[in-house]
């Protein structure tokens, strides 16, 4: 085509490329990247992420940030619980003193670390044990042989049984069993999450294994265990990740409930928000600041994790794509 006025092939392609508004930038990306880009635009996620990162920073840097020794009764002479004499916020102690004359701000900061630890470890316990049970069960069911189905059925009966006990009761049971300590708190809260993670992972794996690409892989002759490991598991991670984030919030709240029930950590040198709140309740009449600050901290932190988790759920949910 060398007619005058007609352009060369290259020019044509260039012009086309210049004007093309093809939406391939959306198509080419992975589910995760896409979810992340949606996450970045969600105000819920931003608020959640800000709270969570502030909390994590405080928790990690607590010893540097704390103005005083959180366990030293530096102002013991200022506080007389038996005469309802307490010290609220003042210049040298911005959040006031607790009932033993310790700086509440320092205790709150150090408490953040304990609360984060309880949340993270509990979630990891719930996730790993739950994932193990759910994963084995799901994989077994996915393999579809008779033995696999039997394994799946036994494991799921067990999980169903656990599910029929409300989470808090499981936590109470475990805490009562192990005796109160910070470790107990983590295990108890984590144990309560085990059946949830197990169910979640199994359900998600089964859904995946029924999906077309898995059927296709199997049809193409990929061995089943390999399919489970390379296709099913990675695709089941989304819901687990969401649940994990939400569990962090639950863990912090549940730890507080256990403390209230007298099953929390009695370790005085390492205060934990839930324990501080439960302990402060008896002074609510004369020293409301002692309960107020831990309560607000718990609510805000739990809110942060919940917001982040919910935003992640929405971002990962293909149904909510627009």
């Amino acid at each position: 085509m060398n007619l005058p006025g007609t352009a060369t092939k290259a020019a044509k392609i260039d012009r086309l490329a210049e004007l093309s508004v093809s939406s391939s930038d959306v198509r080419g990306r992975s589910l995760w990247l896409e979810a992340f880009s949606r996450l970045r635009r969600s105000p819920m996620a931003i608020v959640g992420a800000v709270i969570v990162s502030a909390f994590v920073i405080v928790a990690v840097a607590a010893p540097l940030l704390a103005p005083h020794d959180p366990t030293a009764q530096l102002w013991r002479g200022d506080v007389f619980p038996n005469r309802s004499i307490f010290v609220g916020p003042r210049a040298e102690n911005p959040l006031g003193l607790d009932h033993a004359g310790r700086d509440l701000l320092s205790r709150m900061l150090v408490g953040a670390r304990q609360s984060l630890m309880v949340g993270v470890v509990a979630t990891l316990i719930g996730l790993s044990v739950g994932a193990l049970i759910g994963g084995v069960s799901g994989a077994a069911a996915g393999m579809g042989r008779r033995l696999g189905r039997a394994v799946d059925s036994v494991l799921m009966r067990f999980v169903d049984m656990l599910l029929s006990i409300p989470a808090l009761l499981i936590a109470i049971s475990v805490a009562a069993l192990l005796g109160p300590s910070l470790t107990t708190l983590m295990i108890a809260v984590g144990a309560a999450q085990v059946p949830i993670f197990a169910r979640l992972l199994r359900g998600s794996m089964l859904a995946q294994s029924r999906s077309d690409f898995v059927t296709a892989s199997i049809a193409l002759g990929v061995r089943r265990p390999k399919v489970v490991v390379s296709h099913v598991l990675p695709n089941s991670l989304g819901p687990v990740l969401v649940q994990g984030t939400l569990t962090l919030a639950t863990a912090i709240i549940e730890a507080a409930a256990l403390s209230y029930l007298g099953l929390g950590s009695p370790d005085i040198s390492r205060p934990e928000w839930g324990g501080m709140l439960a302990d402060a309740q008896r002074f609510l009449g004369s020293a409301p600041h002692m309960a107020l600050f831990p309560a607000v901290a718990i609510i805000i932190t739990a809110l942060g994790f919940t917001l982040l988790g919910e935003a992640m759920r929405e971002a990962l949910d293909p149904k909510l794509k627009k």
Partner: protein
Amino acid sequence: MTVRREPATPVLTVEDLSITFTQRGAAPTRAVDRVSFEIGAGEVVGLVGESGCGKSVTALAVMGLLADRNVEIGGRIAYAGTELLGLPRKRMRDLRGADLAMIFQDPLSALNPVVPVGRQITEMLSRHRGLRGRDADAEAVQLLGRVGIPDPERRLKEYPHQMSGGMRQRAMIAMAVSCGPRLLIADEPTTALDVTIQAQVLELLKDLVETEGTALLMITHDLGVVAGLCDRVNVLYAGRVVEAAPRHELFGNPVHPYTTGLLRSIPRMDGDRGVPLNPIRGSVNDLVAWADGCAFAPRCDRYELECLAGTPAVTELPGVDHEHRCVNPPGTPAVVR
């Protein structure tokens, strides 16, 4: 695009219809761009195109079913002389179902799963025709019978999931025609059905149009459906009508490369074995804005630089009621500027 005028007032007139979706934080998307067509009583008009070309959105706009928020609608839609855009919500509700009715693609998801089919018909009868109780039931039975559902009394109490796909679509049609609408919009009514059932359903629709004189807007991507049913066809690409012609004219003398492409990609039983099908390359996602040129250019075999010199104008083929929007139609040498 010039508008073809029938002597009588058409049942539906769509003129320069533009629909833009706006979303916070994203550029507005124009789904329908100055589309015009009209349908007379007893006439079947096809709206053909790949998914995403704007045909369903057009239908929803006619029915007044697009959301209020984040949507801008321009142009005009008139039903028997009544302007639909800007009509009070209440009036529109009165028209919907009674005068304008719609059949959806997937009857399983388009029917309420937890309400018996009969109830879904009678609720329309009581809304628009004031029929209640036994009268409504009797009428529903009659309707179901008319669309060819056997044992309609029993079917009345069944839920959608208890019926076969074809039955569901028949029920859907019964529902749509229950109040004797003058305009029926069928959005891909056969896509979700088996081939044998497809033919039956199309036959049923054809029959209804003929006996009732209903105007039918047929929305489909399937030129086979068009060939069997439509009086006139509008081919949509990326929100614009790229070619419009009576059925025989279009099939006999397609001009726009997109239409040609669509026709070529139909598998033919009478075609020579060994001749490969000829699908249109690329996908609808490869676009050029209409303002810059022909949106189809990236996929077009006949693409030339001229195609990208602004919105292509409408060309009317004289005498055959045939319009198209191609800058470089086949049969003509490359346009010399």
